[in-house]
């Protein structure tokens, strides 16, 4: 959750993609059409009310005070009060309405993106770094959230306010309006420069926050290794430097603000001086009234404050746009291993056949070449072979985490590609090597394997694996929080939890990819027996580096360089004098030396 990776990539949008992003966001906002229309009306009303105040002051001065008409003055005052109260209610409504639209949009977006992430298949997760994927749902959505909560309304109403102010000021007195335009070039040039500089500074702050946070995270999650090698000082120094560059980036951004704000403020007050000076002279010629000068003096803040506001919010808007662009890009990522239209459920059980399967990961070399394999229902098949031979790949194809490049894999006679994904996941389960634990209790972690499993079922699974008693001794028993990634459990205990998931899932075909590598052989045998008992008659594929594990299987397949080079019973293969014999000899010799 703290991988702030990838902030440095595309954080700018060109006009073309900006347009596309806007159109698409518009489509997503369609359910909120009515609310959107109302909120536009409210924003207009609110903006108008902000100009009405100064205008009523002018009216009061010119029609009331100057000619001595107390009635007109009271009218102005009364109207002012009404406008102020109206603005109050309009403002309340618009904040709620815009909030509801914005937050609703964000919720829809979050759910949609996550749903899509869940549909996306392993090839996608191979290509993309986890940190980048996570940052889509965190820092990207957060920058949208920030905009929705703090900036969007102000951005829109500031822009409106500038436009309306210019129009109204020009209508009241075009001469004075022209005077107001004198500092305009300065404001424009400063704003453009500010815009450019501050955007760069903003991106560099974001980037450095990202790298500070990832150094921080690595320093915390790697603290054990750091202490083991007595490297605390070096890491503290490294972090200090990161932290310092972040400070520098913050200061650069503050410096940019520190010159820009004065320019705008100076322009504002300079204009006031001009209005008073030139306007004052004009009143002596009766070109403008005193009320008009008051109106201008009071309205200038309506002109210059929004300019400043816009420049400051522009960064936020820009990065929100970029974030949306990236999120839409993610939503458009095609699902490679998807469900065909007209897919049917897999039969409850059946043999597995791998027929002429070749496979290559996205970028290259074939990893599996023309593999043929038939696994009978209820058989226990072990796969062995050197690192990188393709054992895990074969297992993943059997569970349809990938689709073969060539050939096909069937379960009970049905091509996996014609099966519904839900039935597939229900029948076939893969237990990976890492006993990955989620934050939560031991029970929660087992329950992952079966939606809505009761405590009784969960406990039975733990019991079957033989760890229920062991965990019951913990402070909170089976409801013990395992802490981050299970830091309270031993390495083997984590794998046992993971295996209990398999017991709970109770699939027709179970694939154990080195799922018992951290267990002592005694426990491993117990677990195997338990699974066998539990999954009586079910098919099991085990991948193991310990040949003692393969020795217990019905048949052993030896995978080497992407081919299934040998297959047969353990005894036959040992006798055959091939690859397996050699492997086994090394293995036994290791033992013999002990």
């Amino acid at each position, binding site marked *: 959750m703290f991988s702030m990776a990838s902030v440095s990539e595309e954080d700018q949008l060109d006009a073309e993609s900006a347009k596309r992003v806007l159109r698409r966001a518009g489509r997503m906002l369609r359910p909120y059409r009515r609310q959107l229309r109302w909120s536009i009306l409210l924003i207009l009303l609110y903006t108008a009310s902000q100009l009405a105040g100064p205008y009523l002051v002018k009216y009061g*001065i010119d029609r*009331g*005070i100057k000619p001595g008409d107390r009635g007109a*003055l009271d009218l*102005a005052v009364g109207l*002012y*009060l009404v406008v*102020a109260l109206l603005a109050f209610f309009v403002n309340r409504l618009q*904040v709620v309405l815009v*909030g509801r639209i914005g*937050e609703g949009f964000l919720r829809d977006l*979050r759910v949609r993106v996550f749903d899509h*992430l869940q549909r996306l298949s392993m090839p996608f*997760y191979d290509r993309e770094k986890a940190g980048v994927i*996570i940052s889509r*749902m*965190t820092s990207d959505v957060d920058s949208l959230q920030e905009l929705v909560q703090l900036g969007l309304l102000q951005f829109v109403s500031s822009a409106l306010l500038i436009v309306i102010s210019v129009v109204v000021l020009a209508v009241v007195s075009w001469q004075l309006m022209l005077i107001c335009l004198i500092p305009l070039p300065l404001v424009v040039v400063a704003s453009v420069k500010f815009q450019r500089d501050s955007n760069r500074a903003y991106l560099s702050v974001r980037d450095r926050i990202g790298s500070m946070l990832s150094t921080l995270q690595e320093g*915390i*999650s*790697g*603290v*054990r*290794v*750091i202490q*083991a*090698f007595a490297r605390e000082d070096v890491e503290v120094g490294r972090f200090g430097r990161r932290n*310092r560059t972040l*400070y520098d980036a913050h200061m650069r951004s*503050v*410096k940019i*603000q520190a010159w820009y*704000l004065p320019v705008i*403020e100076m322009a504002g*007050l300079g204009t006031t*001086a*001009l209005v*008073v*000076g030139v306007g*004052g002279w004009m009143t002596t010629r009766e070109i403008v009234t005193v009320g008009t*000068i008051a109106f201008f003096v009071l309205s200038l803040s309506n002109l210059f404050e929004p300019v400043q506001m816009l420049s400051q919010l522009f960064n936020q808007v820009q990065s929100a746009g970029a974030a949306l662009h990236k999120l839409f890009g993610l939503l458009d990522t095609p699902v490679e291993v998807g469900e065909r239209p007209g897919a049917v459920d897999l039969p409850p059980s059946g043999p597995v056949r791998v027929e002429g399967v070749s496979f290559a990961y996205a970028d290259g070399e074939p990893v599996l070449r023309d593999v043929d394999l038939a696994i009978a229902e209820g058989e226990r098949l072990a796969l062995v072979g*050197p*690192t*990188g031979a393709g054992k895990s790949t074969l297992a993943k194809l059997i569970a349809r985490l990938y689709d073969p490049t060539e050939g096909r894999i069937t379960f009970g006679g049905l091509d996996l590609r014609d099966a519904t994904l839900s039935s597939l996941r229900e029948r076939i389960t*893969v237990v990976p090597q890492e006993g990955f634990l989620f*934050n939560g209790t031991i029970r929660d972690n087992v329950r992952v394997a079966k939606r809505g499993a009761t405590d009784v079922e969960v406990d039975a699974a733990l019991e079957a694996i033989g760890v229920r008693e062991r965990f019951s001794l913990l402070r909170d028993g089976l409801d013990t929080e395992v802490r981050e990634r299970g*830091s309270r459990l031993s390495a083997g205990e984590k794998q046992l939890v993971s295996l209990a998931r398999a017991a709970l899932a109770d699939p027709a075909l179970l*694939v154990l990819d080195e799922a018992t590598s*951290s267990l*002592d*052989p*005694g*426990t491993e045998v117990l677990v195997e027996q338990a699974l066998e008992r539990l999954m009586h008659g079910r098919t099991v594929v085990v991948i193991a580096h310990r040949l*003692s594990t393969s*020795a217990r299987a019905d048949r052993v397949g030896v995978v080497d360089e992407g081919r299934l080079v040998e297959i047969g019973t353990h*005894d036959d293969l040992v006798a055959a004098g091939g690859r397996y014999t050699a492997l086994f000899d090394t293995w036994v*010799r*290791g*033992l013999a*030396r*002990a």
Partner: protein
Amino acid sequence: MPPPSSEGWQLIFAQLRAQRWGLAIGVAVGLVWTVGKVSAPKLVERAIDRGIEVGDGAAITRWALLIAVAGLISATFTGLRRYFAFREARWSEAELRDRLFAHLQRLHFSFHDEAQTGQLMSRANTDLQQVQNFIVLIPLTISNGVTVLAVTVILVRTNALLALLALGTLPLVNVLAKRFSSRLHPTMVAVQQESAELAGVVEETVSGVRVVKGFGAEPVQRERLRKEADDLYEVSMQSTVIRSRYWPALELLPNLGLVAVLGYGGHLVLDGRLGLGALVAFNAYVVLLIWPLRMLGMIVAQSQRAAASAQRVHEVLSTEPIVVDPARPVPLPPGGGEVRFEAVTFAYSGVLANAGGRVERTVLDGFDLIIAPGESVALVGATGSGKSTVAKLVPRFYDVDAGAVRIDGVDVRHAAVREVRKAVGLVFEETFLFSDTIAANIAFADPDAEPAAIERAARLAGAHEFICALPEGYGAEIGERGYSLSGGQRQRIAIARAILADPRVLILDDATSAVDPTKEHEIRDALAEVMIGRTTIVIAHRPATIALADRVVLVDGGAVAATGTHAELLATSERYREVLAAAAARDAERLGAGPCSDGDGGAATDPTGAGAVGGERFQAGLAD
């Protein structure tokens, strides 16, 4: 202030004291800003009343120029005021963050076992930001306060009743801003909390995607996320509703003041008791005060928030590291690395666990073991029997509850921590590599190591070959931004890292579990070389690795249950046979002394005997 946050205050004040000069400059700059800001409306008043109203062109020009000067002052100093305020605030944030990180690096393992990375990160991130937000307000608030005061004095002196009407509602702005800020804050915290929870679900689901896909847990995760997204929507809307209650009211109040100014002030002008310019100035002053008053209200709420945050930071900073250097550290004598456990008793006890809780189950209970200098010992035991715990006690990651651990005769608690850690190299069972180049990861113990030394370590760990196969070789980045290596490859880099540190005691905690059987002998040969001249403890379940050791120690029930050679233990220890699943111990024993120990056996050459030999081997294999 409520007592729980008083320590938070102390932390903030100590930091402020250190930066008092910078803050003083910020305040001084702010006061100049106030002068410029407050004089401008007054100058407009003069320009209207003494220039425009009387039609005096020269006066108009003079006042207009003065307005420009005031504008120049307030504009320049508004920038400077901001600059100094942020400089100090960002600096304290950076300093505190440095301190926090340094402290975390010194805190003991049991602290980190209980603490969550996310929690600690938010101490160093969001909490320090709260403190920063407060400190930035301090110099700003002082000049704002002076501004409010000055404006009040000016207005009261012009016309007391009108001043009362104009400013009457403004104290409410202050009160309302304060209440707004303190009402809003809990919802903001809730929003943050919910966002963090949602991010947690995303992080776990993506990092654990293999588990999610493997178990078909997508619907479960989807439901979890939907719930989090709904919760987040709820709290965000709560926060929006509070915003909608207070924000418009905060805008309304000054407007009421303006209405009063126009109403009562207008009649005053008509009665000739007030200049028209003064009326306009009143208007401008009310507008001028809006932000300073809002900020005064905010700082009260912000200060409470900052104190609460600082309190949380303080809690970490005030957690004393348990594993620290003794007052007078005894230097480790030069030695071969004798390791001695003397009646060690140990239980994990999380420091963060509620004090009233029960103590965790004792993991080690009267653990006695002497490992001679240069000896290699294999620790064998069932899952959860405490092997890793034994390993972690040697470099003093935890302190024993009773008994002692000695390296070359010195109790590890009596030596400098750094020296102990340098003397012991541990390869953890879960490999942690840093996002850096392979070379930097291997040279972790000694960043200045020669490339030749790095390569030697990699060769010994059996990693050189695959590293060279990577396009950038040793310069290849690994981790989040680089190559993802297989489990076996990662383990070998971790072994190389420990070898490069050249410790006198080397501990390998199940460090070869992911190495495939074809590499077995390579690793074994390499490790055999590494073990020469140093004490080695290996934890393993595999025969080849156990075979590396001179002696095997069976850990069971928190103590040494048996010790001897592998063959001896197979012969004598029922428990050892159980742990190794060695049903046919005697066969294996015979096998150990038999023909298989030095060759291919008869399988290939003697087909008729294959079954029998295979059977024996089968049983031997079981006994790994």
